[in-house]
């Protein structure tokens, strides 16, 4: 079988040349990245120095943005809010993480599940539930208190700084949990054994060995929590505004109200951006510090620590946290969604399906808003996965010089809070010639940019696990680079790409902070709809809509868990 076919296929095949069609693809991807990341950021900065009508250089936007005491107060409120929320979230998350990762606490799987349930509850849904629970007078907790003690008034008031801290902490503690469990699961039992053999008991070992080893990761989680808290828009808008104080995001929203003062907003967004960039750098520095050998993954064997009777105390604490973040909120969301009037409580004659019917079939835009959310999220997730896969490929295979810059641009949106990103998009694409304001496209572009980092982290991890020789084998046998991508890379990355898609799609269906500045009359998404309903005080409709959104997420979660394992949303690569 030698030579015969080799001779037949011989022809003018040997031509020198460096270009093939795939280069065009690479150039297109690079152009897309410029549109998605670079130009909104550049416009954000430029706009902050431009006069409103003329476009001349000016510093007056900054003078306006920082010219009043209450604007400055809002900045400090945000910092305080972030700090307290992160601390409280740490109090919720760290014991749970230790219990789940390192002890024989009962219900570890259940606890993980409940943290996941917390994680997929949008902050605004949680905030609404807590308005039902702890609103002054009418809130359920206050009513139970009054019923139990016979007092005239209940002690809880969600419309306060403390109330806002609790609500934010309750729905951001999963970030710390994710970081802390990842680190604690890598602390080897041998290190703890070494402390034990030198005479330290369980508690001292935990305090002196285990926790310090996990500390960098925990600090990293606290920082992420802090940033989440100061970037959040919905919860402060629902709680802080009635409580008559402002934070950065709500103040930005007011600059965006009639008339839109995008130049001032851009100037006012700078401290938020600066703090975020700075803290992300600090976080990277802390978590990448060398010397914490346990974080290398070669921890050796790990045995759960026996807590004895204390295991039930741990379990009790886990259930306490879960009841604050999941059980109580969902019980009363369901009650409210099925009630004619939520304040009339749990009686049969108060039960109705009218709210679901109204939201789904009668309300002018509610059903459409859910469809919009899913369409835009699907488009954004697809775009983000394709773009980041392309870029991760270019970077890992070093196809162009300075490919690392592309990778950096993909993860850069991580340091841009959603509201700030939205202002950048508004500044870049709302004015003519593009005039994208209020179109579906601007929302999809903004969502795509916002979730590029998740896509990139997942795509590059997947590609790094793929030996380049797999593709070289295709090429040496006569297949092109495109064929290698289609026949080998794509099939092998199917699962990871599906995972990345879901990790983008699920949060994108609830995204509010960037949508609120960019939606138009025909492009309202479900999160904006929920926010509007809360301003109107329609808690029954709102609960129904929020629950519909949650229910629609469950099948996606199920698919993700089938394809990628139970913890796919709670892994550290998710953020």
């Amino acid at each position, binding site marked *: 079988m030698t*030579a015969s076919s080799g001779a037949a296929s011989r022809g003018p095949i040997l031509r020198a040349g460096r270009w093939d069609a795939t280069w065009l693809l690479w150039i297109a991807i690079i152009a897309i990245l410029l549109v998605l990341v670079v130009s909104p950021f550049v416009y954000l900065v430029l706009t902050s120095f431009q006069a409103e009508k003329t476009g001349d250089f000016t510093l007056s936007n900054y003078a306006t943005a920082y010219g009043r005491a209450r604007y400055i107060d809002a900045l400090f409120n945000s910092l305080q809010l972030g700090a307290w929320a992160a601390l409280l979230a740490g109090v919720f998350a760290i014991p749970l993480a230790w219990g789940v990762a390192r002890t024989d606490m009962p219900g570890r799987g259940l606890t993980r599940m409940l943290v996941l349930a917390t994680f997929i509850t949008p902050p605004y849904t949680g905030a609404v539930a807590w308005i039902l629970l702890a609103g002054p007078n009418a809130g359920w907790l206050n009513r139970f208190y009054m019923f139990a003690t016979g007092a005239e008034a209940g002690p809880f008031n969600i419309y306060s700084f403390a109330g806002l801290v609790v609500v934010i902490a309750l729905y951001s503690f999963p970030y710390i949990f994710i970081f802390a469990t990842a680190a604690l699961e890598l602390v080897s039992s041998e290190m703890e054994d070494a402390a034990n053999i030198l005479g330290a008991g369980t508690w001292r070992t935990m305090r002196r060995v285990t926790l310090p080893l996990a500390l960098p990761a925990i600090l990293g989680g606290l920082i992420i929590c802090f940033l989440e808290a100061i970037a959040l828009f919905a919860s402060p808008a629902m709680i802080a505004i009635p409580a008559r104080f402002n934070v950065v995001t709500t103040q930005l929203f007011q600059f965006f109200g009639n008339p839109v003062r995008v130049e001032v907003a851009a100037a006012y967004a700078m401290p938020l951006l600066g703090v975020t960039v700075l803290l992300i750098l600090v976080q990277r520095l802390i978590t990448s510090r060398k010397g914490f050998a346990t974080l290398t993954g070669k921890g050796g064997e790990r045995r759960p620590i026996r807590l004895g009777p204390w295991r039930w105390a741990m379990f009790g604490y886990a259930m306490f946290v879960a009841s604050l973040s999941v059980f109580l909120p969902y019980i009363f969301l369901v009650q409210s969604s099925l009630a004619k009037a939520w304040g009339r409580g749990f009686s049969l004659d108060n039960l109705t399906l009218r709210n679901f019917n109204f939201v789904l079939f009668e309300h002018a835009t509610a059903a459409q808003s859910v469809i919009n959310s899913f369409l835009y999220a699907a488009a954004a997730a697809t775009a983000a996965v394709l773009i980041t896969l392309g870029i991760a490929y270019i970077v890992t295979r070093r196809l162009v010089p300075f490919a690392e810059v592309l990778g950096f641009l993909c993860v850069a949106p991580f340091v841009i809070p959603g509201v700030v990103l939205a202002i950048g998009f508004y500044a870049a694409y709302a004015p003519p010639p593009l005039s994208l304001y209020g179109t579906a496209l601007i929302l999809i572009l903004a969502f795509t940019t916002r979730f590029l980092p998740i896509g990139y982290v997942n795509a590059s991890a997947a590609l790094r696990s793929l030996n380049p*020789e797999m593709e*070289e*084998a295709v090429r040496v*046998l006569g297949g092109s680079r495109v064929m290698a991508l289609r026949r080998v890379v794509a099939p*092998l990355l199917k699962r990871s790409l599906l995972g990345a898609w879901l990790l983008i799609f699920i949060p994108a269906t609830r995204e509010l902070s960037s949508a609120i500045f960019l939606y138009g009359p025909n492009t309202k998404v479900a999160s904006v709809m929920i926010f509007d309903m809360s301003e109107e005080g329609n808690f029954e409709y709102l609960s129904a809509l929020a629950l519909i959104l949650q229910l629609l997420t469950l099948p996606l979660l199920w698919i993700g868990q089938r394809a990628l394992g139970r913890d796919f949303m709670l892994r550290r690569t998710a953020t």
Partner: protein
Amino acid sequence: MSKLVLKNVSRRYGAFEAVTDFSLELQKGEFVSLLGPSGCGKTTTLRMIAGFAPPSTGTIEMDGQQISAPSGVVPPERRRMSMIFQSYAIWPNMTVGENVGFGLQVRKMSRAEIDRRVDTILDVVQMRNLKGRYPSELSGGQQQRVALARAIVVEPEVLLLDEPLSNLDANLREEMRFEIRRLHDEFKITTVYVTHDQSEAMVTSDRIVVMNKGRIEQIDAPHVLYGRPRSRFVAGFIGRTNFLEGARNGNDVRFDGFTAPAGAVEGANGTGQLLYSLRPQAVGLTAQKPAGPGLAVEAEITDRAYLGEYWDYQARPLGGAKPIRVSTAPASVFEVGSHVWLEIDPAAMVRVE
């Protein structure tokens, strides 16, 4: 005509030169190994032949046509070569049959023809019964055979192998060496084989290119490399050896602990440092003074190790400082400290640079 010609090829990565001035001609059907320690540039050279990297200077020609130059390269997919990778690079999403048939599919053969050829080659590598399996269900050796079949079935102009056996265990590695040579004898494909294992190169190759620090040290047939190494590096890298430094003294050359007539040793009239390589197997070891024609040198055993197949002795010539390494049959036993005679054939001493 030569099949593959590399002319003054070099490859730089920034300031670092991975391959320097590499020239080699392969005849059609020849099996040549690139042998050297890791980082010597052998894999870089192979990847330039495959077309994955352009040379910084120099050219590569196949069948008289230029396929690589600094100005441009024919991409790997148009070179009609094939390659076996260190990781095998068996695609886990395809069955054995699909893996092997891939290259034929790319060449747009009919389904029936592909099936026929895949079956034939799987018979050759004794994998026919595993055609429908996925790679994750195969052992390392079986994956290696799939990689071989996949590379050979397309009847490449040149076959490239990049350390193909380094991930196998020792027994399997030895078996696969002979397998690779057998396949070469059967199909006569011009082959370039990269390895850091000298016995692999010696079993498989017609000629071996020994490389060090990006440069060619010597190109020769295996027995010539072993018997007539030209440089200190080659002598030390291929097999074990003694390095003996000599100094000209009248009609003699003085070594550490013994003297040889200048007429008997190679290149004793030349200039420069007189450095010789003497294989441990070429030295005789006896209790009585040998009667043979070689130099008889009285010595003392300073150290020994038993390796089953041979004894490894260190014998220091009386009046010398450095011991000479000697290999003997397992039956010749000497205690440490005992007085012995070494028999050194001056003709076995090879002058190296």
